[in-house]
């Protein structure tokens, strides 16, 4: 371990008097809503985000970057009847905030009336505020962050000679206050923290270089994986990519590891979002109460998980979030609607303005190795590249890398191939979901075994 080589600022980077900040925001919010109403707005919504924190990156046991973050954003939406105007600013000074109110009101003069525009109905506003234990400041200093990053990189570089260099180990710590109020009288303020540690490594052999990484993220720094675990996992992953080659073009089963599988859950969410539905631009149009996955798959939204990465008792419009099934035994139970899209569709809003608040996919009882052996022959996908997803028709075609499996065992690394199919078939073709849950995301799932996709290679 290197000795401290720089004299960094010693005061904590997450020091924030949350209570007085919230009081201040509350006063500002009320005042601006009043101001907008005085200018003729019939409905007003105010959102503020204040974020402070730091990021320290080390490379080759030296500090590479020390970054202090301090971000403000203020956004105002006004409605003059059904005409809408939005203005935002990073400047929280009195004069800038007043100018922002003017700008939003001015825009609303020119936009055209849309009968579906407006705040969500007053009676739908969340009323039960909850402490979801999202705020865990750790009194982080640059020196402390540096030590964690150095330790992580040290374990990574020491893991094997095949690790040729580090692209950096980074410790991030951020504290945020999210404030939201509207002219229905709804007010909420949520302080929260987010800490993360990552390691990016390069391994090399005669064939060339490979890069891979690992990271851990949590609301409470005590819940992070250890520096050793992160460094060693990154090392293990990058080494496993050496000696790979392309495979033949063919159709084969595909086993997606959890961080790739949860991408498919995000695709599902995008396809059942209100805006995709009223634009009729989704392959899941009119699929409510339809079976789109096999029986054994259910997906439940859990907004009230303590310390959850996407936990919240209200959505981005102030609606109460709720525990609900998105998918029950393969059948789609709800679309994801904000109040605008709900009005367009003649349905009720579902508390999904801003997205889903923690989504859990029911897991089976097989671990990753058992899934590999069940697949027998096929491709484990550990990385996808590019944006080849067409939500209008469900077509999916992306660059990929991973491992070729034969006789139920991993044979070698595979790269420079694509995997392609249609999301509808892929969803229906899920044969198993593993119990190898990845806790680093608001989508909680294990690996997915999909019966067949087209692999393009040699």
């Amino acid at each position, binding site marked *: 371990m290197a000795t401290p080589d720089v004299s960094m600022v010693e005061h904590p980077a997450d020091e924030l008097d949350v209570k007085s900040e919230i009081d201040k925001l509350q006063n500002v919010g009320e005042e601006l809503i009043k101001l907008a109403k005085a200018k003729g707005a019939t409905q007003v919504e105010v959102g503020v985000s204040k974020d402070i924190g730091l990021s320290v990156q080390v490379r080759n046991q030296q500090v590479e970057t020390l970054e202090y973050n301090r*971000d403000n954003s203020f956004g105002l939406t006004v409605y003059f009847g059904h005409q809408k105007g939005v203005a935002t600013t990073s400047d929280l000074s009195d004069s800038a905030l007043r100018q922002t109110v003017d700008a939003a009101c001015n825009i609303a003069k020119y*936009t055209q009336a849309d009968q579906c525009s407006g705040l969500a109905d007053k009676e739908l506003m969340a009323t039960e505020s909850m402490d979801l234990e999202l705020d865990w400041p750790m009194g982080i200093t640059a020196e402390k962050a540096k030590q964690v990053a150095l330790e992580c990189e040290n374990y990574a570089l020491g893991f094997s000679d095949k690790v040729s260099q580090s692209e950096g180990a980074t410790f991030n710590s951020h504290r945020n206050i999210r404030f939201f109020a509207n002219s229905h009288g709804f007010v909420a303020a949520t302080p929260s923290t987010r800490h993360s540690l990552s390691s990016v490594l390069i391994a090399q052999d005669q064939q060339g270089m490979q890069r891979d990484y690992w990271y851990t993220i949590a609301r409470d720094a005590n819940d992070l994986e250890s520096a050793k675990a992160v460094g060693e996992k990154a090392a293990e992953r990058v080494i496993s990519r050496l000696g790979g080659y392309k495979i033949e073009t063919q159709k084969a089963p595909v086993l997606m590891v959890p961080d790739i599988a949860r991408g498919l859950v995000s695709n599902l969410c995008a396809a059942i979002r209100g805006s995709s539905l009223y634009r009729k631009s989704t392959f899941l149009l009119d699929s409510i109460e339809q079976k789109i996955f096999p029986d054994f798959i259910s997906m439940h939204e859990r907004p009230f998980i303590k310390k959850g990465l996407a936990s919240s008792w209200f959505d981005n419009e102030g609606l109460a979030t709720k525990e609900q099934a998105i998918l029950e035994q393969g059948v789609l139970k709800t679309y994801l609607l904000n109040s605008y899209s709900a009005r367009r569709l003649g349905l009720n809003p579902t508390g999904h303005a801003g997205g889903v608040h923690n989504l859990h996919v029911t897991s089976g009882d097989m671990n990753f190795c058992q899934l590999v052996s069940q697949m027998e022959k096929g491709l484990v996908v550990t990385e996808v590249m590019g944006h080849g997803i067409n939500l209008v028709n469900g077509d999916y075609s992306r660059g990929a890398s991973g491992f070729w499996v034969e006789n139920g065992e991993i044979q070698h690394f595979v790269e420079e191939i694509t995997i392609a199919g249609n999301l509808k078939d892929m969803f229906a073709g899920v044969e198993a979901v593993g119990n190898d849950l990845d806790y680093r995301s608001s989508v909680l799932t294990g690996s997915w075994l999909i019966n067949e996709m087209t692999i393009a290679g040699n």
Partner: protein
Amino acid sequence: MNDSLTAVEQEFLNPAGIGTDDLSKLLESMLTHKVDFAEMYFQSSRHESWVLESGIVKDASFSTDKGVGVRALTDEKTGFAYSEEILVPALERAAEASKSIAQKGHSGVVKLASSKGIKPLYSDNDPIMSLSEEEKLDILKKLDQFARQMDSRVTEVIASISGVFDTILVCASDGTLASDIRPLVRANVSVIMQQDGKTERGGSGVGGRHDYQILTDELLKQLAQEAVHQASTNLQAIDAPAGNMPVVLGPGWPGVLLHEAVGHGLEGDFNRKGSSAFSDRVGQRVASELCTIVDDGTLPGRRGSLSIDDEGTPSQCTTLIENGILTGYMQDKKNARLMGSKPTGNGRRESYSTLPLPRMTNTYMLAGESDPKDLISSVKKGLYAPNFGGGQVDITSGKFVFTTSEAYLIEDGRVTSPVKGATLIGNGPEVLTKVSMVGNDLALDKGVGICGKDGQSVPVGVGQPSLKIDELTVGGTG
């Protein structure tokens, strides 16, 4: 001192009562630590967007952002802090935080000299003020009308315009004192089309460092036409093929190939760290001799162009690959200094709150001599791809992807059936060695490119003539 600097100084410094002497003093205060380079970057941005959907302009927003980023470099270390307040105490706090990266006990003198003789590549008109709000709405309504008139199968049109007016001032301990005023506009149209129970989407866009006056009726018609054509083509599309085959890329936007396959891999930071598949390969053959590729920030009015980069270096035209031989990297000040070379005007940052990195401007391949028709007729069985969505690259392994948004089969030297969107994958250092024909039809893209790196987005341009690549992996299902 040039005129633009005076106006910009007024904008940032006068309200806070700061003079250029104060800037020198602040920079000198950072040199009391062992700092090789100290810099302050002031930025003020105004941004607006207007969106039409279902026939009405229902969404519009306006935003302002202003602040200063303070950076200290020592060896390979970077210290960085920023503030939304442009006031002396806030500047002092940010300077204190960023210089903490280096040891105490040094001193230095800073003499700022404003850059002279830099010719602006774009006007300093604020696009947001270039049209009345009624005229902006009119542009959107025309896009909607044109698209719907062109094809009755169009069921929805989403049209948008956006304007950005960005003002920057950068000063640094190397004496740099420079400013730039940067307009940027963009118009997009996306159509949804239905036929026989099938639905498809098509889109098109245009933009550049101009004001809204470029959006003539003729151009709007062309945009609508392209979007409608794309949706209509995709309604007829059959499954794309899977496997290795010859691919002919059309001119213009398909140059996203160059951006992903070689561009990122030639950025200075990756090469300093030795993490690029192109590291230590200057002087070696990385493309067929038909290929000469440049990064050119000096094209007037282009989306990726910059009169000066975000470190105050005038932009330039850098030859990256000449007749197939790798000739150079794109550099910012930090990586140029550490690699013993010169900055190339590629130091770019998304905003004052992010660090500058070596980034591309407008990256394109020079024209060749072949008739584009001959590229197609030389292929027995392959893919013709005139339009793309985005791409991505792993600069270490060199593997890159880009995804077609309009493509066709080539059968016996003729373009036949349209095929569905497919991702193409290749290896950056290899793919251009397989370029066997280069068309004489160089075109630049229409000005809608956005490049992401380390979470920072910046506007860029790409371009190329038609290219024939003898073998590339096509990721269809057929």
